[in-house]
């Protein structure tokens, strides 16, 4: 037992161990995003289908399903946040900058991971208060009746939509580097697979990006407006 806890302890303290935790939790969040997007796109299937889907989520396993998922996501998100901040601080402390700075091939997205990540954090807090906790009493009343209507009305506010689109842009940047990084960190990348992995990561980021932003854009351009009058 002590051998197990010892090696687990040194794994969590090691640079590679921490990176692997970041990659695994990142992977879980990446998979969650794919599922979340698929569900969200049901908005285009109309009020009934979307409300039914929302109802299904909340009643799955007699209502415990959604809580199991929330707990899992919270653990992954928390661990990802904790270890990325830790790693970033260590990295900043590991060296002094050059008077003449230069970068050879590191993509821009890889240089702003902490900033894209923190934007996602700010967005997630806002997003949960907005659509899950529903701090706006009026929106909460509409949400209880029809989540579909709540989303339409929520995004009819241009400021909400703008923040959403900005956050998704940074999420896209985070994923363009992050998804490719998962393969390298978990030891699954080689010279032969490097090209395809890079393309896959960019394609995944693009699908997530356009999928998510299509919703506020469609609503701003009038989708569903006749139904919520």
């Amino acid at each position: 037992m002590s051998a197990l806890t010892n090696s687990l302890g040194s794994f969590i303290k090691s640079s590679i161990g921490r990176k692997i935790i970041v990659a695994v939790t990142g992977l879980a969040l990446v998979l969650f995003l794919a599922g979340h997007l698929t569900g969200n796109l049901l908005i285009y299937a109309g009020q009934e289908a979307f409300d039914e889907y929302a109802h299904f989520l909340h009643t799955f396993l007699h209502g415990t399903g959604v809580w199991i998922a929330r707990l899992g996501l919270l653990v992954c998100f928390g661990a990802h946040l904790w270890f990325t901040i830790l790693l970033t601080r260590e990295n900043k402390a590991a060296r002094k900058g050059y008077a003449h700075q230069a970068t050879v091939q590191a993509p821009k997205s890889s240089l702003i991971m902490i900033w894209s990540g923190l934007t996602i954090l700010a967005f997630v807090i806002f997003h949960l208060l907005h659509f899950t906790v529903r701090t706006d009493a009026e929106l909460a009343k509409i949400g209880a009746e029809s989540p579909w209507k709540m989303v339409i009305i929520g995004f009819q506010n241009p400021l909400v939509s703008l923040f959403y689109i900005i956050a998704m842009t940074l999420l896209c940047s985070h994923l363009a580097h992050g998804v490719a990084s998962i393969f390298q960190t978990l030891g699954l990348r080689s010279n032969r697979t490097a090209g395809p992995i890079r393309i896959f990561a960019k394609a995944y980021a693009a699908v997530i990006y356009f999928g998510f932003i299509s919703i506020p854009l469609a609503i701003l351009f009038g989708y569903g407006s006749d139904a919520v009058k």
Partner: protein
Amino acid sequence: MSHLNLTLKVWRQDNATSEGRIETYEAKEIPTSASFLEMIDIVNERLIRDGEEPIHFDHDCREGICGMCSMTINGIPHSKERGITTCQLHMRKFKDGDTIWIEPFRANAFPVVKDLVVDRSAFDRIIAAGGYISVRTGSAPDAHAIPVPKSDADAAFDAAACIGCGACVAACKNASAMLFVSAKASHLNHLPQGEVEKDQRVLNMVRQMDAEGFGNCTNQFECEAVCPKEISAQHIAKLNRDYLAASAREAVAP
């Protein structure tokens, strides 16, 4: 033969504890056939004639094999030219009137000793932690005593080309030593002679790397872009994989 007149912005630092600063020097009448180190030699000769302290820098072989000539040129270790060390860089790569920034390899694990000279003994301690195989010395074994598949021999040889120069650390935004450590581990882990101590090697080398204060890899691959021996970052992927497996085996069967 054509000549160049250049402006140098050079990091000067009296000793390990003093504050450093950038100083400006004129490098006049530099032949395009000179190497980068010869260019500094010419500037130093003038500094010595003028009674000033010459620019201190590390060098030894001057033919790209010893890895001593650590210098960051315009923000890029060993300059922006691919696959070469500073001593293999020629002045014909520069234009008349250029300003060249010359700084030491930057990493807290590589403290500056003087001017452009840094202390890279952290690398020696990583090697001592696991970059070896335990065999009886004495008469050399027959070359074909242990058969090695060609692909493994090639992979090991690619990794073994690392000269320990430290450019990978200096280029990394996080001062991570992953390319160096992965090359040294990969070199031995690919071979049957290294297989025996593989897990312990990986665990010990990574632990020593962390203890030296190098940063964490963020998969930006600046290291492989500046490596004079063009060591591939796929060795880092292998190190990650080997480290995970070694940690798991250590946990269940110590």
